[in-house]
């Protein structure tokens, strides 16, 4: 199957993801940040589809954009204080933070530019019709133990969240 207009969709979705990412970290109102984050997550789901990973794209939309963002919005409603919007949104070390992070980004780009020759030339053929089935085979076969540990982690997280948010234990 030949995808249509791949470069255009790639640049469109990446631009949407990055612009919404900038909005996430610059908006004053946390609700606006949350909405921008939803746009980032949806455009990343589109990028996963372009990479022949429909299962991960579906999980991204259902779990991230559907589940985690609702959790975030609920907590924003619970803890929102109107005086927060009037005071400064950035802390005192913002300049040092941005400089250090820019250096990190330059390091990433340098490593990728130097190291791209070690990537394999050919891409693996991943048939998207069988993607969910194959992910399930890996998940319940080779990755059985990590899968069970992930379920234990979720149980611990649920208990921890309830204990944390309770008034009196």
């Amino acid at each position, binding site marked *: 199957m030949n995808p249509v207009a791949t470069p255009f969709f790639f640049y469109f979705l990446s631009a949407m993801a990055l612009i919404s990412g*900038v909005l996430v970290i610059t908006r004053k109102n946390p609700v606006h*940040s949350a909405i921008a984050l939803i746009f980032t997550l949806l455009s990343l789901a589109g990028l996963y589809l372009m990479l022949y990973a429909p299962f991960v794209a579906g999980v991204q939309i259902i779990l991230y954009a559907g589940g985690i963002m609702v959790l975030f919005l609920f907590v924003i409603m619970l803890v929102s204080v109107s005086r*927060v919007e009037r005071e400064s949104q950035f802390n005192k070390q913002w300049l040092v933070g941005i400089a250090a992070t820019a250096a990190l980004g330059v390091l990433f780009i340098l490593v990728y530019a130097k190291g791209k020759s070690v990537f394999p030339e050919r891409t*693996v053929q991943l048939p998207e019709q069988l993607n969910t089935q194959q992910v399930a085979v890996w998940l319940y076969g080779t990755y059985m133990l990590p899968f069970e540990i992930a379920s234990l982690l979720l149980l611990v*997280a649920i208990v921890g969240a309830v204990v*944390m948010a309770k008034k009196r234990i």
Partner: protein
Amino acid sequence: MVPITTLHYLVVAAALFVLGTIGVLTRRNVVIILMSIELILNAVNLNLVAFSRLYGLHGQVFAVFVITDAAAEAAVGLGILIAFFRNKETVNMDEVDLLKW
């Protein structure tokens, strides 16, 4: 037009990672710091899925695990935030100084 290679996806993921790190290091609002951590985890996921085109499905399986971790982290982090807000009536990161002396 230049065909889209794995390197393109890696650059986008690096930019998202840098954005998330800037958010964690510079913002004061704890909710937005947690959202920036989600941005970082998403950048990692994009890397994993991009490499799964070169090395097989392992990357996609691991991306599912990372999404699980993100859900657990968001639940616990927001629970801590609610407990903190109940005690100090603020959501600012630099006022979390109970353990400092």
